[in-house]
């Protein structure tokens, strides 16, 4: 490995994540950007959410950006992490670590079974099938046949069973570090796997699946690897989500939750590690801050026709997303690699229906 790649791929990210670890120690505040000082629990919780979604977006990018699998059901695995860990702790009164290990084991099994079935079809049909499985999970969490999830009420975590360092508002900085550790871990796992030999085959499948088959390899097995890795990391992110918000709510089970991850990845740049992470961070930050902008006196003073759309963060983000898809398919990361094919353009071949040919 050349020195330059060593710096770009491993040392650079280490320095960035290392620097982010010092954020809770910063004593000053940035007016306009954050309402409260940086070291305050409110700001740290927002930054934690940004980092968490950066990590979750990156788990989605493993199958979408690197393997060309357009799933509309990634939320299922995040929800599995969010709910199952909490159910084990709160409903079954298990202790913390067994609950975590059990959740991860179940995530691997569920992802393998559902991935095996849904990967029998490709392209758009795969998207619909994953959407249907996720919908089944959402219905299960809502109807709550065993009185585990508490349906629409949501399930607050039994904090006596959680590690002391992760409970309470004074420990927000620990939760921030937890989310940072999560995004860094996902980042390095992705860095390592996409450069391994299976990872290279994932990318080959994205570019041209038929050619991989002709080489005598079975794309189904490699797609399943990518799907299971992506889903398992998503479940781990779900556990972090449960700890950060100290409970589980139905929002994570909704199909729209997967769609927001898709928005994050595309805005940042599909098939790019920094792109997906930045997309997740930026989206979460804007989604949070645009609410404040919408209720600001400037917007409230506008006529009704202008005010209503500006009060809806998801409307604004949806419009930004459409503009990026149409005019900047490489996403933000595409700006850094001008001239080369990037982002959505590289996934194109993987979604194309058969009638189009190669």
């Amino acid at each position, binding site marked *: 490995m050349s020195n330059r790649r060593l710096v770009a791929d491993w040392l650079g990210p280490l320095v960035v994540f290392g620097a982010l670890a010092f954020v809770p120690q910063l004593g000053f505040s940035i007016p306009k950007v954050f309402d409260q000082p940086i070291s305050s629990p409110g700001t740290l919780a927002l930054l934690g959410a940004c980092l968490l979604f950066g990590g979750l977006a990156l788990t989605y990018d493993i199958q979408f950006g690197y393997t060309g699998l*357009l799933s509309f059901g990634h939320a299922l695995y995040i929800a599995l992490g969010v709910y199952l860990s909490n159910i084990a702790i709160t409903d079954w009164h298990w202790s913390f670590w067994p609950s975590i290990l059990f959740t991860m084991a179940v995530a691997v099994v569920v992802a393998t079974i559902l991935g095996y*079935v*849904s990967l*029998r*079809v*490709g*392209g*758009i*049909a*795969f*998207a*619909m*099938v994953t*959407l*249907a*499985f996720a*919908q*089944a999970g959402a*219905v*299960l969490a*809502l*109807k709550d*046949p065993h009185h585990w999830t508490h349906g629409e009420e949501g399930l607050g975590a039994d904090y006596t069973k959680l590690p002391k360092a992760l409970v309470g508002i004074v420990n927000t900085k620990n939760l921030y570090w937890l989310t940072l550790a999560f995004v860094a871990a996902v980042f390095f796992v992705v860095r390592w796997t996409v450069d391994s030999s299976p990872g290279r085959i994932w990318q080959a499948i994205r570019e041209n*699946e*038929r050619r991989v088959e002709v080489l005598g390899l079975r794309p189904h097995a490699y797609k399943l690897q990518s799907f299971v890795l992506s889903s398992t990391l998503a479940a781990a992110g779900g556990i972090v989500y449960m700890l950060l918000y100290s409970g589980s709510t139905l929002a994570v089970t909704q*199909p*729209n939750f997967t*769609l*927001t991850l*898709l*928005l994050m990845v*595309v805005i940042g740049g599909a098939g790019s590690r920094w792109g997906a992470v930045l997309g997740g961070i930026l989206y979460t930050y804007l989604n949070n801050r645009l609410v404040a902008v919408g209720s600001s006196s400037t917007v409230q003073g506008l006529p009704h026709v202008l005010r*209503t*759309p500006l*009060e*809806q*963060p*998801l*409307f604004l*983000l*949806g*419009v930004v*997303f*459409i503009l990026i*898809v*149409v005019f900047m*398919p490489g996403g933000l990361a595409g700006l850094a690699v001008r001239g080369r094919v990037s982002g*959505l353009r590289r*996934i*194109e071949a*993987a*979604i*194309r*229906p*058969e*009638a*189009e*040919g*190669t």
Partner: protein
Amino acid sequence: MSTFLLLTVTGVGLAAMYFLIASGLSLIYGLMGVLNFAHGAFITVGSYGTRWTSAHVFDGVHSALWRWLLSTLLGLICGGVFAALVELILIRPLYARHIEQVLVTVGLQLAFVALVSGIWGPDPKTFVVPAWLHRTTDLGGAHIPNDRWIEIATAAVVLGLLQLFLRRTRYGLIIRAGVENRAMVQALGIDVRKAFTLVFAIGGVAAAIAGVLSGVYFNVVGPEQGTSLLIFAFIVVVIGGLGSIGGSAVAAFVVAIVQQYTNYYASAGLGDMIVVLLLGVVLLVRPRGFAGAVVGARA
């Protein structure tokens, strides 16, 4: 027995809505390879368009029936025009870039739901229909709400008209040929892009009808209603076989009936799960769906 009859007719009523949504999705996918998420928005345009025109355009009309019919007609026109505009403005410039086309419709759907909740509020609103629709007709001892008959009849008429259009007209021929092999149609010098706008408009009108009927069926319209119907329509399209209207009709019937029976005889919510299971089984046994059209296979 009377419960069984009521469940069956209600199930067929639900199937009617699934079919109206799935037929457009299936045609659009078959012809253009676009999974149209914005179909949820077309449903919403139909239901909210009808509700709005009923209150603001036709508020002078005294007969409740005429008021409902006129506003529905306007709602359907809105759905068709909106869908055609989506195709012209957002889909056409991204010609042959499938993933971008799909993602644009996803973004449109999300933004549209947010906009509708911004304007009319996130909560479902009551949907005013002629009183007759809320009365019941006795059939074999079962009290069946009258709106079910309207839903079933509408879907049957739409199915008939679509089949006539596809089999007997020149544009129908072009669409059928395009679903089979688009490159060949283009090679014969036919501008297939006009057919794209046309299938979007047809799909938009059918989805708008489903939107109005869902307002009648549930008594309310809400910003999220389109999305939840859309998911079952996706399942119907995959089971029925992409690109096939007949397959969609059969699959809509099977899915809705299975869902109704299971939700009533087993437990509420289980029906939705069974439908997903059914989808899994169909994919394992017959990845191309009932009608055998190509499902998501790719080069």
